[in-house]
Structures are given as C-alpha cells and as structure tokens.
C-alpha cells in the first residue's frame, strides 16, 4: 500500500468517524428530550461522576493554584508587582486553568470509565439485550451520564477554581509575603461577569464533548476485551484533544463578544 493510499484511507476513516459521532450526538440529544427519563440512573451517575471525582479535583486545584502562584510570584517580584498576583490568578484560573484542568481530569477519570463500562456491556451483549426488551440503550445508558456530566462538571470546576485560588493565597501570603487583603481584593476585582461567564460556559461545553465522545467510543467498541481497551484509550485521547481545541475556540470567539465585561 502506497503512503498516499494509507493517508487517503486514514482521512476517509476520520471523516466517517466524525460523521458517525455527529449522528450519535444528535441521537443522544433527541433521546434526552423524546425518550423516557431515567432519574435514578441519573442520580447514581451524578454521585459516581461528581462525588467520585471530588478528591481528584481538590488535589488538582490546590497544587495547580500553588504552582501557578509560585511561578508568577517570582516573575512579578522582579518588577515589584507582587500585588497583582491575585488579579493574574483570578483571570488565569477562572477563564483557563480551572475549566481546562477539570475537563482534562474528567477526560482521564470519567471518560475512560464511561467508555470502558459501555464497551464491556456491548461486548457481553447487554446493550443488545436491552434493545431486545424494548429499552433504548442510548436513553438508559448514555443520557443519564450526559446529564450527570452537564451538572457535575461545572460544579466541580467552581470547586476547583475556589481551591486553586486558595492555593494561590497560601503561596501569596506565606512565600511571596503579599498581604491577604491585597490578594483577595485583587482577586475580587477580576470576578466580573465576563470571566465568570467564560468559567461556566467552558465546563458546560466540555461536558457535552466528554459525554458524546466517551459514549460514542463505548457504543462502537469492537473486538472483545482488547477492543474495549483500545476504545478506552482512544476515548481519553479524543476527549483531551477536543477539550483543548474547544477551549481555544471559546477563548478566541467568545472573548470578542465579552470584551466589555472582562
């Protein structure tokens, strides 16, 4: 097979997969509105996804905030601008670090578990059994996970933001010797509509990205245990890359509309 043919086949496969992913996403949205709602499954998923990820998000937030504050405290110190640390922390964490880090942690922990779980159900024909019993597996399995993600990812992003700002405060006060009042007043100065809106919009967008991709890879896994493993890896990679791309696009295009509010 020539290199050209190989590239051509690869591109065709990517185009076909994207098309299938789009169609699958439309089916998930349609099932959300037009199929039976599974409340108990949704609550169970909220607990698994939300509470189950809390510890990870707390650790991520505190260490990311401390690391970021430490790096910037040194740089700002060189210019005698340590008092601006709170402003920089607020902007960076609310708009970028908080949503992206939480999104990536969810991609690693939640997307992998969703894909592996659905993939295992597919390979043991449990999804077929559901269909045979008149139950739509997308409504029963995928939609509760999507709803749980839409509710829990923004909530945990807010927690991650708060913990990261707290981590930054520790560094600011005890290592950079910035007064606590100055740090928090600088943070509050940047708690404006534009930054807060961006900080909520992004996790909502990421939750859709993770739900669509993770469920799609699970429902389309093939080849038994090895296939489920491969689908899980692909799912985490695709979710992580997509989160970074969506983050860039939102920052680029939504920022223009919110200029006056930032």
């Amino acid at each position, binding site marked *: 097979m020539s290199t050209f043919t190989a590239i051509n086949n690869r591109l065709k496969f990517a185009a076909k997969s994207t098309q299938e992913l789009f169609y699958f996403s439309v089916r998930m949205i349609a099932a959300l509105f037009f199929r039976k709602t599974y409340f108990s499954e949704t609550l169970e998923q909220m607990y698994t996804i939300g509470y189950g990820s809390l510890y990870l998000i707390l650790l991520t937030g505190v260490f990311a905030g401390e690391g970021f504050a430490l790096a910037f405290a040194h740089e700002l110190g060189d210019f005698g601008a340590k008092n601006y640390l709170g402003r920089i922390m607020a902007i960076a964490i609310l708009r970028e670090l908080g949503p992206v880090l939480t999104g990536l942690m969810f991609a690693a922990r939640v997307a992998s578990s969703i894909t592996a779980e659905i993939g295992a159900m597919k390979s043991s024909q*449990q999804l077929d059994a559901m269909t045979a019993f008149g139950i739509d597996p997308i409504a029963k399995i995928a939609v509760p996970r999507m709803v749980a993600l839409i509710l829990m990812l923004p909530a945990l992003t807010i927690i991650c933001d708060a913990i990261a700002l707290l981590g930054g405060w520790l560094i600011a006060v005890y290592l950079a010797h910035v007064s606590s009042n100055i740090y928090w007043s600088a943070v509050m100065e940047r708690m404006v509509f534009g930054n807060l809106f961006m900080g909520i919009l992004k996790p909502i967008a990421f939750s859709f990205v993770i739900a669509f991709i993770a469920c799609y890879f699970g429902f389309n896994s093939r080849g038994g245990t090895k296939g489920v493993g491969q689908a899980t890896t692909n799912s985490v990679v695709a979710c992580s890359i997509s989160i970074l791309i969506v983050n860039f696009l939102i920052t680029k295009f939504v920022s223009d509309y919110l200029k006056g509010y930032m």
Partner: protein
Amino acid sequence: MIQLRSVSFAYGEKQVLQGVSFSVDDGEAVAIMGPSGSGKSTILRLILGLENASDGEVIVDGHDIGKLRESKRRQIRKNIGMVFQEGALFDSLTVGENVGYYLLEHSKLKWEEIDQRACRMLGEVGLNCDEVIDLLPEQLSGGMRRRVAIGRALLSTDPTIMLYDEPTTGLDPRSTHNILGLIEQLHREKNLSTVVVTHQIADAIAIADRYVVIIDGHMVFDGSLDELRDSRDPKVLSFLAPFRASVTGVIESRLSDVVAQNESESPQEES
C-alpha cells in the same frame, strides 16, 4: 411465523450472509447449524431487528422487520424471547432484577409483585428461587446463568417465538443436557416457534424438527434429520464428517424411541 427471503448481510465490506432463504412455521423448532463465523448468529440478530439486511426480506409475524421504525419493531419484539450467547445478563443487577427487568421497565407493578413473578419463573426454569434470587450473575455457574437468561426472556415478553444463540457453549455435559431438556420442554409445552443457533450437532438433534446448515454465509441445507443424514452435498458432508457417528447414533436411538412409544400406545388403543 418467520420467513427469510434471499437475505444478504454485510458488516462493512465483509459479506456475512448471501441469499439465505428459509422459514420457521408456528410451533416448529429449527436448528441453524454451521461452523463458527459462518453467519448463524447474524440470522438471529436480523430476526430480532437488531441489524438490517442489506438485501432481501426478514418477515416476522407478517412484517418485514428491517423496514419498520424502531417503535414498531419494539411491538414485534414483544412476541420474541431471545437468549443471547452466554446469557447477556445485566451484571450490576441481581438475578431477581434480571428476570423481572422487563416488568420493572415497562409495567407499573409493585416490586413485591415483580419479585414474586420472577421467583415463580426461576422455579419454572429449574432454579431454587430462595437460593439464587439475590445473587449477582458473576456468582452463578454457566448453566445457571443460561437458565436465568431463559427465565428473563420468558417473563419479559411472553413470547410466541424463542431464539437461542449457542445456548450450551461452554457448559459441562450435565448442564448441556439440562439446558437442552429445558428448551425442548418449553418448546413442547408452550408450543413456541423455536430457533436454535448452534455448532453442536448433538444439541440440534436433541431439539429441532428441521435443520438449516449455513457455511460461509451461504445456506447449503434445509431439511429433516433423515435428509441431512442422506445429503450428498460436499459442503454438508464436510461439515458433518466429524459428527457422522453421532448423527447416525441419534437417528437410530430416536427411531427406537418412536418404535417403543408406538408399541406402548397400541394396547391402549385396542382397549
């Protein structure tokens, strides 16, 4: 009644079935045999409407199921019980929840009532309800899992058609014997149209009235056990070669059963 008319099916570029035609009458038991990977299980998926034929028609209860909308397919599936390979039990649910799954999802019955019905059904498939109802599928043996799957299919849909995909694969001889006995008994007592997919000829002979042989996606035989034994088709012969002794042996034992049964019935008729 089930009819397949010139059915072809492909997974992507891989042709799985080509021009397959046969029918299953009401109350008839048909075994679909063939080597692994020959497309047997795909036929069950087509009958159930889980896949769409790329060519031809799959008629179930007078409807071409491949051309129906999902809501209409669900109506037809209510008449079909399916026992998947290795059971396909929901591994996060208990045995009782598995058996009562359909009622839990589709009826407004109270859990106590569903639990009672599940318990009765477990008894019907030869399991001790009190011992197994709260167990998880992973705690069951292979044979018990198949029984639970059969019970789930029966309680779910109150079927007129039962489909079994390799119901004895991976079971020890004793469990195989028991499961085949259960399938045969359900077929006889409930007058179900039964389709069993298997690559074990002994299993097929124990259950079926008629035999369909699929090799490499092509149907190479459709007929009775005697016709199967007498077939001179090279593909059928090559498939049967390893089992020739068992085919002949089972036919002889069946014939002697029939003769013995006739002899025992004759004096009663006379009296």
